[in-house]
């Protein structure tokens, strides 16, 4: 009976590897350099030591988070959303930003690239809002992982 129960538990658990807290995953994040200033999120609570730039839509935190601890929402090439702190602080992205500063060209002229990052998953949330362009409207965020970047390298778009 014990063996049957164990086998039953194993069969029940055969659900594939689902992402869990502290898992490290590969995420191909699609970006342009103006995303460093444009992308933002708003949430009235912190996620560990990380916070969004905004506490609510168009209301900043009284004490802003440090750049390395400031969350923003990003999409991967396969349309998964992540909230990632200080992504553009990563050396590869900082270098890429320096190559194509967004202040000198229009947004539509910027070249899209992919940051292939290893991310450590921290927690899932859907209690936040996102802004895709600074000064534009906020919209409710869908379920997303909060994940901290471990390392990234750049792949230019074709």
């Amino acid at each position, binding site marked *: 009976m014990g063996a*049957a129960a164990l086998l039953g538990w194993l069969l029940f658990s055969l659900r594939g590897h*689902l992402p869990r807290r502290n898992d490290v995953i590969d995420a191909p994040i699609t970006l342009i350099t103006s995303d460093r200033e444009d992308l933002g999120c708003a949430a009235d609570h912190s996620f560990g030591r990380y916070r969004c730039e905004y506490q609510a839509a168009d209301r900043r935190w009284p004490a802003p988070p440090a750049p390395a601890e400031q969350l923003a929402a990003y999409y991967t090439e396969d349309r998964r959303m992540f909230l990632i702190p200080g992504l553009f602080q990563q050396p590869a992205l900082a270098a890429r930003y320096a190559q194509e500063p967004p202040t000198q060209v229009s947004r539509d002229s910027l070249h899209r690239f992919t940051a292939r990052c290893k991310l450590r998953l921290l927690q899932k949330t859907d209690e936040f809002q996102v802004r895709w362009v600074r000064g534009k409207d906020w919209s409710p965020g869908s379920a997303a992982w909060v994940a901290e970047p471990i390392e990234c390298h750049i792949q230019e778009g074709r």
Partner: protein
Amino acid sequence: MFRSLTSRLRRSLGDFARSMGEDAPLFAVLFALLVIGVLLRAHRLDDPKVLKWDEVHYVETARAYLAHHYAYNDHPPLSKLIISAFMAVIGDGPVGWRLPSLLFGLGNFAIIAWLTWTVFRSKRAAWIAAAFVAADGFFIAYSRTALLDGMIVAFSLLSITILLVGRRWWHVLLAGLFVGCATSFKLNGLAFVGTAMVICLASRALRRFTPLLLLTGLLVFYAQAAFTLWLVGRPFSPSAVVAENVAMVTHHLSYTVVHPMSSHWYTWFLPTRPISLRRDVDIDGSIRTLVTLGNPLLWWASTLAVIAVAVTVIRTGPRRIWALLKADGTPPGPRADDAPTAGADRSFLQDRAGALLWVLAAWAAPIVFWIPSLRDSYIYHFLPSYAFGLVLLAGLTDRMYRRYRLHTLLAVVLVAEVTLFYAPIWSELPLTQTALHARLFFPFWR
């Protein structure tokens, strides 16, 4: 009288405790299946928080009733009245929508056990039947959704059972009430009105009460339709009820679009088109889904059980069956010389060929209803038939257990293993697409 009742109860419990002691491993598995079935049904009943699949139609209609507004019905209104009553007490939310289905789903454990005991006169067979229904995804799915097919199962099982145990006019009255309710959920419940009438007519004890069955069923149908029309401020005379139902039937017959989830009756035995009642893909790619696919082992074994019982009934011969039907609807208990042999099993089944014939008829009736139908049919039209199929499977499993205890125990354990493997797609636990496809191994199941 009270003392004789308590002594009978004590004797019965003592017998049961003794049999459980002898069959402890089997009952451990059956108990586990029952617990698993309850958990899979109740797990996150309030999720999703939005209406899915046909829940939209039934709950929106229930909301209209609560506001005393008329709403067009695809089906008779009884199920929506029940849902609206729960919503009135619990609130207009996921639990209020789905709790009636959950309660009927849990009640079906006891009802199928009662029918199985009635036919096979074995408490063990009854427990097996309850465990099979508890552990099967087809029944689990309809216990977790604001749909009405589990309610039809309950009343169809009750109507047949009461006619098999009954000898008095009030048994027929109750049967009329039950088939009236089954028809008041969906008009294909008429299949059970027909079956119940034939059972009554064949029974010497019940024959003269057949008009009572029809009249009661008709009154129940009229009462729920009239009450609903009164509730929404419309005329509720018999002619108004008739007009309402003629409009409903005309609407059904006018359907020309064939839904991609529809399936012909002859595909239900595989099946080829189980329905995904809900499917949500999470941001991380994990899938939560609720699929109306039964336990494949039970599904196919129940069809074999139906075939085996049908062969037995045919071999019993029409004369003996007619004699059994006329004499008494209730099957006898096991004979004194009921040894665990093939011959004894054959005799046992032939002794109750009359009752088995009625279970077969109840299994066939919902299927036959759809053979000539011009409307598209779906796998959920097979749900009541499947319930009767599991009655037969449970009875045969019990007989097999008497002869091959270890092999039968292993077979029931295998049923449990298959249940645990499929549990994630019956209770919307997250899994990857690969894991989902491993369970839906036929491409036409995806």
